[in-house]
Structure formats: structure tokens, C-alpha cells
């Protein structure tokens, strides 16, 4: 799943979008028959396929609104496209799934139309931090899906599961870790702050950030691999070559279910929870349909369906879900998560990146 989130749009997605576009052009009658429609941008590839198959068809059946799903590239390419199109009064997609950093960047240019919660009654189901707000309180986006990065280990090498992120600092783990290579996708500063400085608020000041960097630099002797490419770490984790590290909870769970000697542990300080939001472009004219769509997506049974079929963590409260304990554990945890400080990656992006690169490569 994260392959899709981190890389650009796959060739298959482009081909798929092309075929979909061509068939729409070829069948104008179909378009006319559906007087209500909505263009929804989702990450191309696995995500789009899963949503098309499991979610969108049912939505159309229930509401009569036809969904035209658009394969969007990840990273900031889609944000830039939406932004430039909005300046020209166009919306390549009405509603898009956006990363948290992209949400904040879009806020700075008022790209997102404010959402009206009166038209999204199901938004009350959501866990509070999944509602993305402008500084003045208007709602910019509503949580779509979430996923966890946790502490993973090879079960052949570690008979006992580690219990805390502190394992990263343990001298016994010298040269055994695989960690993500970028400050903006590893979220290790947040982990350091939560584990050693009482919470991510410790990162509020530059002084606090420097302290976190210094503490984090202590893990360097334990790190064998700083990875950008997930396949590289996943393979080494399965073989025991690199027996511990940070990785995606759902993918690790799937590998374990396949019989691989790996496990994913939610440390006592919490797993790292990253997420995507539904956001409406200010250039869109499908405001009503967009609200109906977002409201539909916030239903507990839809979130349960996503957890079962796509492997994402639900954005609505646990007690509203009909997931069994096992199904819930496969995608999430009751331990309070570490929420990344997305604000830092917009306000201090270059400074953090520079410090980070100097720390790991210096």
C-alpha cells in the first residue's frame, strides 16, 4: 500500500485512467443518464482498484451519484496540479485523498473549500484528530484512511517481542536496525520525543528539536540500513539479515500471515499513525455531492469494510465499529498513537531536512 503512497502514479494506474477516460468519451450517453456525478481522486494502483471494487459501486447504488475515480500521483505533484487548476477555475477532481502535509500546504493557499459539518452528520463518529481544520476553525478535510508504522522484529532472532521504542537505543541491538531514511516519512523525531521527552510537544521549540536530534543520533550505531525503498527492508527483515526496525503494521501482518518469521509490535509509547484526508477543491461545483460522499465514507460500517478489504486503520471511534478484536488488531491498536507533527514539515521543512541529513550522513 505504501509503495503507492510514496511513489508516483504507477504505469498501470495511468493506463487504467486512460482507458477509463477513453470509455467515458466513447459513451456520452452513460454520462448523461447519470445526472449526478463526482470526480474522486485516490492514490493510483492498489488503492484506486480497492476503492473502485469495494466502495464506489455501492456508493453509487445507494445515492445515485456516479463516481469517476481519478488516479492521483502521491507526493506533492497532485497538490501542485490541483492548485494550478484551481487558479484557472478547474478541478481535475472534486474530492481528493490528500496527505496531512499536503493538507497544510493547501491550507496556506486556501485551496480547500470549507466543509459544512451540518451536511456531514457522520463526522461526529470520527476520532477528533482526524478532522483537519484551518487555523480559524473552518474544516478543511475529513479523515479518510489511516495506517500505522510500528516496531517490527524477526521472530527467529527475537524470541520475545520488544515492548518499547527504547529498543532502538539498546546497545545490544548494534547494527541490527532498519529505519526509514527521511525525516518526513520516518517520524523518528516524534518517536524520540514521546519516548524520552514526554511527548511530541517537546518539539515545539528549535531547542527541543535539537535535543531530540542529539538523542536520536545515539541510535546511529545500531542502524544497519536507512531505507527509502520498502522492498529492501522487508526482504532483510524476513531473512533475519536486519532483524529489527520500523515498518508498516498492515504489511508486516500480511507477511506474518503468510508464514514469514516477522511480527509487528505496538510499543507502549504507541505506534506512529499516519493518515490521509478527504478534501474538496475550492474550484469544484459538486459541493452537495462531495458532502454526501464524505458523509458516506464516515460511516462505521464503511470504515470496517475498508479495514477488512484494504487494510487501513479506521478513522472512526472504536466502540462504533463492528470489527472483531482480531480484525481490529490487524489494522490498529487501543494504545494511544504517536501523531506526527505535520506542522513542522511545512514550517521548518528545509531546516529539519538539513539537520537530519547531517545527522545520519555526517
Amino acid at each position, binding site marked *: 500500500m505504501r509503495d503507492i503512497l510514496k511513489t508516483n502514479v504507477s504505469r498501470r494506474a495511468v493506463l487504467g485512467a486512460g482507458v477509463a477516460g477513453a470509455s467515458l468519451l466513447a459513451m456520452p450517453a452513460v454520462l448523461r443518464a447519470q445526472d449526478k456525478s463526482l470526480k474522486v481522486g485516490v492514490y493510483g494502483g492498489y488503492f484506486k482498484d480497492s476503492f473502485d471494487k469495494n466502495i464506489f459501486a455501492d456508493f453509487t447504488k445507494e445515492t445515485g451519484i456516479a463516481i469517476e475515480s481519478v488516479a492521483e500521483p502521491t507526493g506533492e505533484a497532485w497538490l*501542485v496540479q490541483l*492548485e494550478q487548476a484551481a487558479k484557472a477555475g478547474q478541478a481535475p477532481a472534486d474530492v481528493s485523498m490528500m496527505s496531512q502535509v499536503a493538507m497544510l500546504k493547501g491550507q496556506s493557499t486556501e485551496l480547500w473549500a470549507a466543509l459544512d459539518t451540518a451536511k456531514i452528520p457522520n463526522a461526529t463518529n470520527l476520532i477528533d484528530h482526524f478532522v483537519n481544520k484551518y487555523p480559524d476553525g473552518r474544516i478543511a478535510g475529513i479523515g479518510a484512511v489511516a495506517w500505522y508504522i510500528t516496531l517490527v522484529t524477526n521472530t527467529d532472532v527475537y524470541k520475545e517481542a520488544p515492548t518499547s521504542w527504547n529498543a532502538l537505543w539498546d546497545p545490544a541491538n548494534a547494527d541490527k536496525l532498519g529505519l526509514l531514511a527521511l525525516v518526513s516519512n520516518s517520524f523518528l523525531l516524534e518517536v524520540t520525543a514521546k519516548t524520552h521527552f514526554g511527548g511530541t510537544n517537546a518539539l515545539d521549540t528549535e531547542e527541543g528539536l535539537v535535543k531530540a536530534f542529539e538523542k536520536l543520533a545515539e541510535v546511529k550505531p545500531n542502524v544497519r540500513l536507512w531505507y527509502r525503498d520498502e522492498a529492501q527492508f522487508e526482504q532483510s527483515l524476513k531473512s533475519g539479515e536486519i532483524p529489527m526496525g520500523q515498518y508498516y503494521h498492515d504489511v508486516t501482518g500480511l507477511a506474518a500471515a503468510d508464514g514469514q518469521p516477522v511480527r509487528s509490535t505496538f510499543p507502549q509509547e504507541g505506534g506512529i499513525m499516519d493518515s490521509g484526508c478527504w478534501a474538496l477543491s475550492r474550484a469544484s461545483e459538486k459541493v452537495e455531492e462531495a458532502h454526501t460522499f464524505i458523509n458516506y465514507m464516515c460511516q462505521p460500517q464503511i470504515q470496517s469494510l475498508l479495514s477488512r478489504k484494504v487494510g487501513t486503520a479506521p478513522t472512526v471511534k472504536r466502540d462504533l465499529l463492528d470489527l472483531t478484536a482480531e480484525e481490529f488488531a490487524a489494522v490498529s491498536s487501543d494504545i494511544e498513537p504517536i501523531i506526527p507533527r505535520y506542522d513542522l514539515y511545512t514550517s521548518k521543512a528545509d531546516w529539519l531536512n*538539513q539537520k537530519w541529513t547531517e545527522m*545520519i550522513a*555526517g
Partner: protein
Amino acid sequence: MRREPPQKLADYGPLFFPAGMLIVFFVVPFATMIAVSFFRRDPAGFYSPDFVFDNYARFLSLFFGKVLGFSLFLAVAVAICCVVLAVPFTYLLSRAKRKTQVLWLVALLSILSLSEVIIGFAWSTLFSRTAGITNLLVMVGIMNEAVALNPSFGAVLTAMVYQALPYTVLVLYPALVRLDPTLTEAARTLGASPVKAFFTVVVPALRNTIVATLIMVFIFALGSYLLPQILGRPQHWTLSVLITDQAIYQSNMPFAAAMAVFLVLVTLGLVALTVYAGRKGEAA
């Protein structure tokens, strides 16, 4: 046939196509990159057209100096290793039977069909503790226990030499095939051993080819960004790795462009220096 200088505009016709290709595929992209390197970075957005030196100023630091130094050192090391291995190999190859030559050349060409990703992952498996070559050494009894050979500088160097060696051989091959065999025969009749003849006759006769090959492999190796990432530690990351980080992950095109322009300038400078030193050496 007499060659006349072109008289009319139409005589220059055949030049238009290559010139056009050069402009479209090299001059325009490169000029765009130079322009972007002076643009203003907007951390909350993308970038805006401007004329600022911030991106270059950020690059001029001890940290980036060290990374640049390492990148140049790595590229030089790869170039020297490749040439040291390839010259004797290609010399022997050019003296071998035709069938042997064809077989070797086909094998070398097939390496070129491998992508950098496949080469990187193959070597990382070969150098691993769990499935790597050290397991063979343990089996034979040379080593007591299997160890991991990557990530390390040696692993990066090995894979990069592996990747560049076919190019080196293919560039050296025509020159060595054309080398007059009577030169070495004369040396042998005058009493030189084969090794001595190789070093005193073959190598000096190929001086220009070898220098040209060194430069080619150097530039080829300088652009590598995948192998140092897969097989090296962060201190073995080249400037190209950091350029990729800035361009793709940080959306900082102006800074990435500034670093790339700097890398190109340093490379051109070094190549010019080599050529200049070569000319001087010839004149002396």
C-alpha cells in the same frame, strides 16, 4: 573526391537535425535547470521565478563539501579500478580466438541489459550474512562464521565497478584490436618479457585511449545514486543521492537544480584539467 567548404545555406542542411536534437534534448533542459537553480524556494508550496543565490549559498558548506569530495573520490576510484582491470583483460581478449572474443563480448553486453536496481539487489544478496558468499567460504572451511559484507564502501565500489566494467571493455576493445601486433613482436625479439612488453609498449601506445576511458567511467560513476543507497551507509551516499532527496522527497527543485549545476561544473572542470594536463605531458 574533393571536399569543398559549404557554399549555400542548404549545404548546412545535414547539420540541422543533430543540432535540433541537441537543442531540444540537451540545451533546453539544461538551461531550464540553470534557470530553476536561481528560483526562490517556497517551503509551504513549490517555487516561484526569481533570481536569488540562496540555493548556491546553502550548498557552500562543509557538509556538502564533504559529500561532493566523497562523490568525486568514489568516481575516481571506480574509474581507476575499471581501467586497471579492463586494460589487461581487453588486451588478452583481443589476442584470443574469434569465438572466445564473441562469447565474452556477448556476456559483457548482457550485463548492460541489467538495470541498476537488479545489480544492486543481486549484490546485496551476495554480500548478505544469511545468503551471501561468505557462506561458501564457511563451507570450504576458510571462515568460521558467515558475516555481512554490506553495507560498506567495498560493497558500493564492487557493484559500481561491476556495472561500469562492460562499458570500459567496450570502449577499449576497438583500440586494442587495431593495435599493431608487430609492436609487441618487436619488443619480444629485443628480449622483453610479455609483461614488460605490455607495460612498456602496449600501455604507452594506448595512453590517449586510456585517459579517455578513465574520463568516461568517471563521469558515468559520478551519476550513480542507487547503488550507494542500497549497498552503502549514509556516509557513502553520493551527491546524486542528496539531489534525488531534494527533488523528489522535499520538492525543493531550486536547491536540487543548484546542486546538479554545481556537480556538472566541477565535473567539466576536472575533465578540462585532465585533458589540459594530457596535452602538456605530450608536449614535454
